[in-house]
């Protein structure tokens, strides 16, 4: 494209001519040639002073052969004045002038440039060069692309990397309504119901949600996930504590490490008696997670009071003591690379009104509530049953590979019969379907889409759309400049000079001036004056998330903001399209990223 414009430029040197009459004479002889037709003509004049009428006649002469007078190079002040009043670009105004071009022309947008090029093309009817425009439309910087993609990703909070690396998908919720629990079971969503006191104790490690109504549940879960992502610092703390807690249980951890998917099951006898199935799943690999579980939501049900309330309901819930809860958190919370899904499907026979299953981590045995024990005596073999658990860790079993369901390993001396007695997940689902019916409306409330995979796809698509930029030698030279990073808002009156590239993380307000020998990149709104390539590097560029610069200067090219642009206020949104300004044939053109 630049070549195209350069080809179209025609410089007529009349700097030796001394009188206006001679200029017109020389000009008319030059303009007779075929070369000068359909060109952008740049006149080089010497010290000759032209008045408005003379310049107009020259202009009309040039327009007579379907060319345009696009630039004037004069040493005469009078001629300069006249030319400016006629809207002609004047360069080299005087000998002393260090800056060659005044910002008499607003900077162009890519669309305007395209239009201009289109006109030239239609005149020349050269179809081959059409391809150059197309290729030039996709001008972007890969770095900027990544920067813009990232904020979106953070907002959507579905990127798997973010989840795995920085955010632990542990959500604790209070559920008081048994109906909610039913639905949760059907959708293989697990919920811990906890005592608030316990939660406060573990507040630093666990983010919890109080949910009383199923409608609220979905929203609440989403907001919890948001909170997690917005507070990476807290998360780091939790992650550290989690790791420590894991280390306290090395046996379990090793066990989980050896097998991709494990299930803990507690009190199988009780389960059998009360027709309750308790399935815990440890999922360590995200792939497995995607296959088996759509979301990573955990809910503890701990309160005895709520337990009593829900005692008459069909669905059983987990009950935990505060102490037990802490320990359960240890299992719930995991490494950053692990995604732990605690799948609890609980059934209860319609006859057993007060049946409860204590379903939590391996250390459930310590300190059980006596009240619960009394309530559970009907279901448990004896009240001593729980005490036995404290002594015998054999109640904790692991089922390996939920997806395979065949490789089962028992740990902690757990009898294999117990493992066999546990129905597999699919079977539980089938049974649940029989009992509750597979109501799609109900399940939809608790259906959580695992959009992590989708986000990956979106990113890949974006990468496909925007091709890699080809770097020229000059670009590489620019990159070799030292780069200054400035993480602040540049305000009015502030000047930044640097003999290299400048990257500003923040906005540049009107009245500020940034001058760089290399590129200027503003990750924010650029509203001040930016001068890239101040040492004369015409390959320098100015980039910004939003280009609203009062003036753009690249090397010795000056341009001003078009008057049509509203100057009062630029609203800060998330939908900025990054823009880049560069020189196209002595004119500064702003390209939008997705042009």
């Amino acid at each position, binding site marked *: 494209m630049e070549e195209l414009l350069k080809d179209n430029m025609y410089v007529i040197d009349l700097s030796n001519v001394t009188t206006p009459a001679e200029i017109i004479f020389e000009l008319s002889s030059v303009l007779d040639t075929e070369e000068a037709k359909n060109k952008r003509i740049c006149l080089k004049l010497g010290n000759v002073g032209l008045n408005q009428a003379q310049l107009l006649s020259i202009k009309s002469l040039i327009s007579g052969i379907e060319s345009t007078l696009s630039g004037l190079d004069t040493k005469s*002040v009078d001629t300069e004045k006249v030319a*400016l*009043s006629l809207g002609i670009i004047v360069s080299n*105004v*005087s000998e*002393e*002038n*260090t*800056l060659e071009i*005044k*910002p008499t022309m*607003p900077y162009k947008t890519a669309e305007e440039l395209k239009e201009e090029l289109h006109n030239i093309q239609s005149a020349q009817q050269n179809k081959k060069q059409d391809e150059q425009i197309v290729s030039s439309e996709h001008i972007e910087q890969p770095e900027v692309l990544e920067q813009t993609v990232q904020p979106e990703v953070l907002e959507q909070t579905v990127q798997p990397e973010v989840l795995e690396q920085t955010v632990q998908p542990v959500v604790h919720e209070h559920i008081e309504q048994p109906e909610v629990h039913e639905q949760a079971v059907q959708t293989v969503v697990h919920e811990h119901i906890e005592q608030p006191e316990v939660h406060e104790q573990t507040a630093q490690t666990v983010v919890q949600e109080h949910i009383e109504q199923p409608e609220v549940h979905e929203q609440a879960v989403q907001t919890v996930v948001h909170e997690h992502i917005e507070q990476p610092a807290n998360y780091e703390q939790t992650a550290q504590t989690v790791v420590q807690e894991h280390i306290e249980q090395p046996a379990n951890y090793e066990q989980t490490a050896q097998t991709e998917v494990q299930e803990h099951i507690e009190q199988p006898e009780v389960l059998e008696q009360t027709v309750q199935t308790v399935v815990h799943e440890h999922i360590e690999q995200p792939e497995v997670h995607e296959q088996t579980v759509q979301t990573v939501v955990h809910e503890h049900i701990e309160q005895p009071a709520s337990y009593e309330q829900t005692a008459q309901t069909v669905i059983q819930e987990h009950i935990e003591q505060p102490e037990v809860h802490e320990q359960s958190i240890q299992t719930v919370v995991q490494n950053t690379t692990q995604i732990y899904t605690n799948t609890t499907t609980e059934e209860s026979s319609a006859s057993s009104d007060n049946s409860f299953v204590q379903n939590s981590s391996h250390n459930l045995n310590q300190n059980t509530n006596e009240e619960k024990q009394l309530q559970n005596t009907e279901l448990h073999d004896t009240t001593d049953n729980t005490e036995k658990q404290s002594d015998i860790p054999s109640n904790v079993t692991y089922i390996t590979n939920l997806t395979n369901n065949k490789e089962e390993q028992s740990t902690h001396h757990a009898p294999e019969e117990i493992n066999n007695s546990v129905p597999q997940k699919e079977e539980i689902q089938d049974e649940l379907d029989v009992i509750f019916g597979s109501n799609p409306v109900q399940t939809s409330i608790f259906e959580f889409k695992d959009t992590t995979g989708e986000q990956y796809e979106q990113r890949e698509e974006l990468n496909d759309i925007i091709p890699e930029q080809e770097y020229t030698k000059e670009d590489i030279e620019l990159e070799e400049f030292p780069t200054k990073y400035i993480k602040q808002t540049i305000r*009015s*009156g*502030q*000047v930044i000079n640097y003999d290299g590239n400048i990257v500003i993380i923040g906005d540049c307000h*009107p*009245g500020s*001036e940034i001058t760089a020998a290399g590129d200027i990149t503003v990750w924010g709104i650029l509203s001040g004056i930016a001068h890239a390539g101040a040492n004369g590097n015409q390959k320098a560029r100015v980039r910004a998330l939003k280009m609203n610069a*009062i*003036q753009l200067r690249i090397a010795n090219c*000056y341009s*001003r*903001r078009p*008057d049509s642009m509203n*100057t*009062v206020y630029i609203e800060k949104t998330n939908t900025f399209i990054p823009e880049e300004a560069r020189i196209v044939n002595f004119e500064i053109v702003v390209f939008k990223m997705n042009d």
Partner: protein
Amino acid sequence: MSGRVIVITSGKGGVGKTTTSANIGSALAKCGHSVVLVDTDIGLRNLDLLLGLENRIVYTLVDVVEERCKLKQALVKDKKNPNLCLLAAAQTRDKSSVSGEQIKKITEKLKKDFDYIIIDCPAGIEQGFQTAIAGASEAIVVTTPEMSAVRDADRIIGLLEAADGIDSYKLLINRVRPNMIKSNDMMSVEDVENILSCQKIGIIPEDTGIITSTNRGEPIINNEKSPAGKAYINVAKRITGEEVPFMDLNEPKDFIGKLKKFFSGLKKQGKE
């Protein structure tokens, strides 16, 4: 040609110096005079914004003073009126970068080419003020009918009287609200005049259109319906020596008010 150098000053900030400068300059240029506006509020320039020339400034007053460019290169022509030019102040410097002597030199040069040189003075009485008035021979003191502004104007008038080169000074009372004067909530124009014992050159009524015109970068004199715009044109005419009566601010604007006035006139006639 020897132009008149008029400095617009006030002492207190926010009374409308810059607005007055922009509008008087534009009005004078509209009348056919060649005008240059000089912004001496270095570091806090606003005159370019009011004229909508912000994006055209390359060289500033400081560049001229420090001889990085010629004076004519630093003059920015107005978008609409070719008679009007702006010599902008530098935003990235402060008041100490220009001295009174340098301003004097510049105004002497500008006098040759322009009929009117309007200097926009910064607020305060410090170096910036002294620099701004150095080249001027006339002054317009802008004030509002508030005690604080009047006090500051009084101080400024004292300084102007003491300064060399200021031959005459006039008072411009800005942001006058006739309704408040009626209800005795605001000092009347006469009160201000009496307190300052200074001849007035104009009364500008309060006008919300000023805010929009400032934001758009268009002087309000281009808005023919605006009372403030009319008042500024009148001020410009008085500067040129034309005798224009002061606006009757109590004149009812709305139709009902006019009707009332008409009927009250009829009653008086009937009584007679």
